[in-house]
């Protein structure tokens, strides 16, 4: 298949405004009469609020409003379970809970007013460890609930007892992972404008998921959805992070805006952002695996417990993805897994790039190497013996038969690009000196899009102006990943026009239908199909119009028309490629307008059917999967324990790369984020308090930490994806930690089962300070 606009590394359509500083992010917006909003947060992770006195704060010059939980019409919101409070009324559940909000004419006045709010707390004991929360007699984090369990997903396949009875070797291991901060470079911001045009309130800002925010605000205000309009702005990164935290911020700003009848802007400082925003779930995972002496997996039993923190947030779905991916891309006849989420008084946890997969992959891919060591096998050969192929049956009982299961191809390409075999043999020999090298790998299969989590459909609008220029709307949002460019490429491909004729509009909930959230690496696949659908509808209208106008004269039918190079052609002569121009796209648009033809269309795409039985964890949870393999090469200074990642090879089957340059960009970025997860990043918590609330304490990779990264794009077009395209955003991050841990093991002989792999762990095998990589 040959393409004109897709499968090409075209330049990003939003790069110009970003390199010139013209791109407006939330914090750059100003409105006449705008006030500044600030939040007073609790002093204690868990406390009863006995009294709040706002009198002095209200009297402070410049202060226009001070609101508490009492002023919130409906104080509970949430996408899955509605138990997150907009403002804490009677009780605070975690250290980021807001207690009051202030709107003032200046930021200084708002900050000063916060100090004048008098709150009387009664500090309460809290639960800071999910193991504690699980105990029968544990206090309940939320008194109105029967217990601390947010969710339990069981999965049963085959007969686990029988499976282990057949095993020659059984290994039991425990792995843990940490709280991680998204660290999007732009802290959260929201501006609520009251009574703008015909909406009750309009929300601007760093909104990842405009519909989720719209729903939350409408439900908090107890008004109809059409009264709340959310317009997205340039977003300074999100990685799953600007969802619930933005919803709550938007609800607070909306309340203040309606109270004062003035626009209210709220911008978090970095410290506020880290203190309040949800994190990646820490997991504790017990794995038991059984295999034959020849290295065939026969049984796997898993218990995984996720810390949900104070609220349910996305825990039910995050843990659900863990269920599907927990056994890895391996054929295992007998499987029993139990995945749980528990409430604690820790900071709450939610969506972050990977979404429940990086944790289980760290465990299960470390385990595969441990098993290989136990069996005296090469880890690569052990994997190749057990991986999924076409027609394999997954742990959830799904037969993989509707797309190319390319895992073997992906692995072998990564092995080749990294020179794995040679290096593995070389580093197995004894190494002199303090610095030791190792190489390690990890592989995965990943369900694309939402799967059985929620409705999986998206919309797009294409609107052609009478001069042939085009406005493109999508219900999914640019987060920085490059969605605008990808969607514009798809529209341009279908309509045969240049990208510079396409104006990509920001998401506006009053214009385009609810398309769900920009999550789960679903945009290209689901949103891309919606854009294609819209483009094809407009194209059909145009073709029909052209046939009516010129069909008789030139003797062709609508279906014979060819759209390319900003023109419309018809095939002529016998040779393929002989074409004759009928009209330019621009001229066509003018004529169609004058003839009263509608040149706009809504596109819609709904994902194929899937199924899931929550009791047994069986079904077809996703309609297609992507496959990845990453190989890490490290050097460990056994004197200091320092780990240097020298090289990461990342091979990913993306179906088809709509924009190969963008795919590589995703790989570089995801690999680096995975590297941070593996060796540097950890939000340090102690009894619910957070110790590192800025980048001086929470360290993320800088350019100096960057290894050589070799991206390998593998393309096996998917029958469902637009032009065969699937996903790339999240798979890039989920593999690094296990690959690096496996490489560190080869280098040092030390197996580290806890993330991050810090200096102490490398040196002495366990961490010295509680929760510290510093």
């Amino acid at each position, binding site marked *: 298949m040959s393409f004109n606009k897709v499968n090409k*590394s075209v*330049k*990003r359509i*939003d*790069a*110009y*405004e*970003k*390199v*010139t*500083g*013209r*791109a*407006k*992010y939330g*914090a*750059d917006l100003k409105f006449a009469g705008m006030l500044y909003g600030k939040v007073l947060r609790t002093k204690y992770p868990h406390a009863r609020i006995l009294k709040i006195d706002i009198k002095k704060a209200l009297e402070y010059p410049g202060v226009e409003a001070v609101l508490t939980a009492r002023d919130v019409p409906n104080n509970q919101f949430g996408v899955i379970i509605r138990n997150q409070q907009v403002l804490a009324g009677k009780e605070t559940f975690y250290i980021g809970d807001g207690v009051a909000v202030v709107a003032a004419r200046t930021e200084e006045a708002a900050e000063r007013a916060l100090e004048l709010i008098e709150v009387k707390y009664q500090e309460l004991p809290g639960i800071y460890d999910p193991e504690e929360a699980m105990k029968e007699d544990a206090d309940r984090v939320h008194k109105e609930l029967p217990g601390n369990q947010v969710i339990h997903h069981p999965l049963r396949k085959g007969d686990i007892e029988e499976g282990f009875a057949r095993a020659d070797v059984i290994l039991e291991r425990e792995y843990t992972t940490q709280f991680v901060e*998204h*660290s*999007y*470079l*732009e*802290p959260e911001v929201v501006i609520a404008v009251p009574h703008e045009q015909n909406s009750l309130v309009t929300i601007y800002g760093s909104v990842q998921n405009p519909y989720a925010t719209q729903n939350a605000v409408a439900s908090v205000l107890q008004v109809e959805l059409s009264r709340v309009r959310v317009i997205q702005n*340039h*977003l*300074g*990164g*999100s*990685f799953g992070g600007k969802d619930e935290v933005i919803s709550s911020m938007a609800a607070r700003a909306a309340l203040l805006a309606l109270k004062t009848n003035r626009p209210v802007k709220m911008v978090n*400082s*970095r410290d506020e952002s880290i203190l309040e925003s949800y994190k990646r779930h820490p997991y504790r995972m017990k794995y038991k695996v059984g295999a034959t002496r020849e290295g065939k997996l026969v049984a796997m039993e898993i218990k995984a417990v996720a810390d949900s923190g104070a609220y349910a947030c996305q825990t039910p779905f995050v843990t659900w993805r863990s269920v599907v991916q927990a056994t890895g891309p391996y054929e295992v006849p007998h499987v029993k897994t139990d995945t749980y989420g528990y409430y604690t008084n820790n900071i709450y946890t939610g969506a972050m790039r990977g979404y429940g997969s990086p944790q289980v992959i760290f465990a299960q891919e470390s385990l595969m190497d441990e098993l290989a060591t136990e069996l005296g096998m090469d880890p690569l050969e052990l994997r190749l013996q057990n991986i999924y192929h076409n027609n394999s049956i997954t742990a959830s009982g799904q037969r993989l038969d509707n797309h190319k299961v390319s895992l073997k191809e992906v692995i072998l390409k990564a092995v080749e690009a990294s020179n794995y075999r040679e290096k593995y043999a070389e580093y197995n020999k004894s190494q002199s000196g303090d610095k030791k090298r190792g190489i390690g790998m990890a592989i995965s299969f990943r369900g694309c899009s939402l799967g059985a989590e929620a409705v999986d459909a998206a919309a797009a609008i294409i609107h052609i102006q009478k001069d042939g220029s085009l406005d493109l709307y999508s219900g999914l949002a640019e*987060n*920085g*990943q*490059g969605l605008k460019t990808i969607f514009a490429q798809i529209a341009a491909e279908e309509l045969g026009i240049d990208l510079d004729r396409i104006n990509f509009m920001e998401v506006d909930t009053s214009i385009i239908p609810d398309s769900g959230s920009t999550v789960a690496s679903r945009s290209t696949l689901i949103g891309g199909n919606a854009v294609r659908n819209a483009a094809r509808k407009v194209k059909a209208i145009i073709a029909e119009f052209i046939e009516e106008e010129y069909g008789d004269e030139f003797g062709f039918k609508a279906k014979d028309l060819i759209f390319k190079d900003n023109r419309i052609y018809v095939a002529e002569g016998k040779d393929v490629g002989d074409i004759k121009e009928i009209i330019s796209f621009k001229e066509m648009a003018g004529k169609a307008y004058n003839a009263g033809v509608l040149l706009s269309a809504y596109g819609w795409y709904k994902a194929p059917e899937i199924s899931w039985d929550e009791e047994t964890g069986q079904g077809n949870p996703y309609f297609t999967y992507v496959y990845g393999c990453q190989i890490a090469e490290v050097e460990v200074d056994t004197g200091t324990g320092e780990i240097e990642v020298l090289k990461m090879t990342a091979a990913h089957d993306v179906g088809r790369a709509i924009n190969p*340059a*963008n795919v*590589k*960009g995703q*790989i*570089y*970025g*995801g*690999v*680096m*984020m995975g590297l941070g997860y593996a060796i540097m990043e950890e939000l340090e918590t102690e009894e619910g308090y957070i110790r590192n609330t*800025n*980048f*001086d304490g929470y360290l*993320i990779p*800088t*350019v*100096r930490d*960057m290894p050589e*990264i070799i991206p390998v794009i593998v393309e096996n077009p998917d029958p469902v994806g637009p032009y065969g395209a699937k996903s790339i955003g999240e798979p890039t991050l989920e593999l690094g930690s296990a690959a690096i841990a496996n490489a560190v093991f080869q280098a040092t002989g030390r197996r580290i089962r806890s993330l991050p792999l810090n200096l102490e762990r490398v040196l002495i095998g366990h961490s010295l300070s509680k929760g510290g990589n510093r």
Partner: protein
Amino acid sequence: MKITITVNGEKREVETTPSTRLLDLLRDDLHLTGTKEGCGKGECGACTVIMNGELVASCLVLSPQADGAEITTIEGLGTEEELDPIQEAYIEAGAVQCGFCIPGMVLASKKLLEENPQPDEGEIRRGLSGNICRCTGYQKIIDAVKLAAKKLAGTGKLAGAGKSRGKGGGR
């Protein structure tokens, strides 16, 4: 208090307070919002500007310290018609994702290339080590700097050319 600063070639008198950060003065008083705030603590580089020829984190500079200074912000690079070669290179190399770090990165690149028109990879890494990017994994940013060095050498333009000529362009 009043201070005088020359921003992107244009001399400005600004009424401010001693505790106002240069970052806020640029963003709020001069409406040059291309300079971003990512941490407020000198850790991320999103607020980077060039002040008297040096890279500074504008979140750490108080307005009196900027009195009399010459400042270049991202808005001062290139012109309406013609981008600075560094900006072009960032676009061509695909170095931009969310874009929030980019103004700071571009200015850090500019300073680097002014001092060292042909930096090697290690020098590029050192030059950009004060700027965090969470999206790109840095690879394409390094590629962009290499490309910019080539462009600048090719056109015979010094990295400094075109500097401060934008008449506060982009506002």
